[in-house]
């Protein structure tokens, strides 16, 4: 029969039990499990039409509606004075950008409409490529871990053989993909709109430029990963989805502004600057991911976290 056992000593008066360090899981990362978690989360997202409907709408507004209206208005303005005023504002752009506009639009032969619409398409819409994926991915990522806990499915994951790092990375991918795919598709449509509307003014299709390719493939993904690494950490720590949405909004807003300014600067500064900005963003993203992986624990999936 059971022996009598002394219970653990209570904490000192007025103090709670100390927080325990989270159990670290080490060993080889299993990419198959990451893919499984990501695929299942994406399947659920596809089923949530009430979520992705507005998100597609957001992408459409930024990549299609606004550029079409602005570029079409600019190229169709009949008043020469108005267009020249817009062209004069281009003089505030950096020299490198002005040279690019001159050379790409036919130099002195370029029309003011051509120069203004080229500048708008190439330089001023750049931040859109960052704002859209960050907004969508943040919205998905904020609910991803706390949502598992709220629905009770965190219990299933916590007891499964999947490692917490695999769960974290799978959820990060599942949050990153919707934002990035929306951006890539939106970018394709945006390129078509730009070439169709501005192309005839500057002597043919010209978009995407080299900097835009680098921006999309090299700068946007790390900014997205960096933001998500923070958002998922928050999602693992807060108690409700509503709190996660609020907190991630606070975190992602400054990051969106940084990404906005950096991407604009990348386009103005030439390919080399874009590569450097992207490289720094990747470095920060890797650091963010490494720290983020530690934020998820089985206790947090169960909703009983008292870990540091």
């Amino acid at each position, binding site marked *: *029969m*059971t*022996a*009598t*056992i*002394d*219970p*653990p000593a*209570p*904490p000192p008066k007025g103090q*709670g*039990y100390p927080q*325990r360090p989270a*159990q670290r*899981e080490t*060993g080889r990362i299993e990419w*198959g*499990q990451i893919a*499984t*978690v990501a695929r*299942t989360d994406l*399947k*659920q997202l596809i*089923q*949530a039409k009430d979520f992705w409907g507005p998100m597609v709408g957001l992408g459409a507004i930024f990549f299609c509606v606004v550029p079409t209206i602005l570029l079409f208005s600019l190229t169709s303005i009949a008043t020469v004075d108005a267009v020249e005023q817009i062209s004069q504002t281009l003089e505030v752009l950096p020299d490198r950008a002005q040279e690019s506009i001159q050379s790409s639009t036919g130099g002195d032969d370029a029309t003011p409409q051509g120069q203004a619409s080229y500048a708008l398409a190439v330089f001023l819409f750049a931040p859109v490529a960052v704002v859209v994926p960050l907004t969508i991915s943040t919205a998905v990522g904020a609910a991803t871990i706390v949502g598992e806990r709220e*629905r*009770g*499915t*965190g*219990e*299933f994951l*916590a*007891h*499964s*053989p*999947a*490692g917490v790092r695999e769960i974290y990375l799978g959820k990060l991918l599942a949050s990153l993909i919707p934002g990035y795919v929306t951006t890539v598709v939106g970018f394709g449509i945006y390129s078509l709109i730009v070439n169709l509307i501005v192309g005839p003014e500057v002597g043919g299709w010209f978009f995407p430029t080299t900097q835009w390719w680098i921006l999309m493939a090299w700068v946007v993904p790390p900014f997205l990963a960096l933001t998500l690494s923070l958002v998922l950490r928050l999602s693992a720590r807060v108690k409700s989805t509503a709190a996660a949405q609020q907190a991630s909004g606070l975190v992602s807003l400054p990051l969106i502004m940084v990404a906005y300014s950096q991407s604009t600067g990348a386009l103005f500064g030439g390919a080399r600057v874009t590569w450097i900005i992207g490289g720094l963003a990747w470095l920060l993203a890797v650091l963010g991911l490494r720290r983020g992986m530690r934020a998820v624990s*089985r*206790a947090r*999936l*169960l909703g*009983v976290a*008292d870990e540091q």
Partner: protein
Amino acid sequence: MPVVMTLPSVPSASAPDRAPAGHAPVVSLDRVERTFGDQTALAGLSFTVPARSITVLLGPNGAGKTTCTRVVTGALGPDGGTVRVFGLDPATDGPEVRRRIGIVSAKPALYDRLSGLDNLRYAAELYGLGRRDVAARRIGEAAERFGIAGALDQQVGGYSTGMKTRLALARSVLHEPELVLYDEPTSGLDPESSYAVLELIREMTGQGNTVIMCTHLLLEAEGLADQVVMLQDGQSLVQGPPDELVRRYWPDRTVLIDAEDRAALAALAGEPGVHDVRHRDDGPATVVVDDLARIPDLVHALARAGARVTRVEAERHSLEDLYFAVRRDSGENRIGEVVQ
């Protein structure tokens, strides 16, 4: 402070009937402690689970049953004590341990937006069955076995509570686990569904699984358990096979016997195996015997003495009786300690 009950031991096999002799326990907890903030969930819990047996963790809400299952899978690490599952430490060999365990939580923990099939596929992939033939075959078999094959294409959000439990049960055995943990698996089910679920659990031990089930429903445990562990405040009050525990708690067997001529009942005191006869003028006598197998002899003795027997009723103590008796005693002890 919780008090651990000490019941007298009786000469009996300590392992359940289904457990093969000489096998190492599948689960072994030794003085396990776990706190959440200033709340103590497990306060030195110790018990072992023999292979191919059903162990039922009994206790009120907050007794530590769920924490216990979480410590067994390694989802939570203990603050103190030793946990061994299949001889491994779940804190360090978590993936290996969890791969060999199936679990159904108190909430079914299913993805409502996915179909039943997608829920099972997700589990199959995470438990290493892949996405092809093996997974498809196991999913088909489990769905048939738990009667949900016809509903696999439906979204789980539209399932009834019973169907969700069946799906969760099917998911728990997809990977053919050696140990299955059920945390109140019949919670929220109607009596028919509960019965079906318990039958399925019983079936599983017949097929070689070891089962740990948490419940506070004593009737469920009574018919199912090879071993019960009664928990309170994170400690085991008593543990063992239900019949054996009843025998330990009530070592004497009692029989209520009545006759038209109650004075004749006094003759029973001299019969072999009778320890005591307690007379009451207004009711049957309570006869304490060493074995209920003595009853025919007692009736025969009364007949020989010319008494007309009107009532013979063996007193049987259920697990429910035991549970409340143990908890009552434990409570009394606690009050005593507080007073001291």
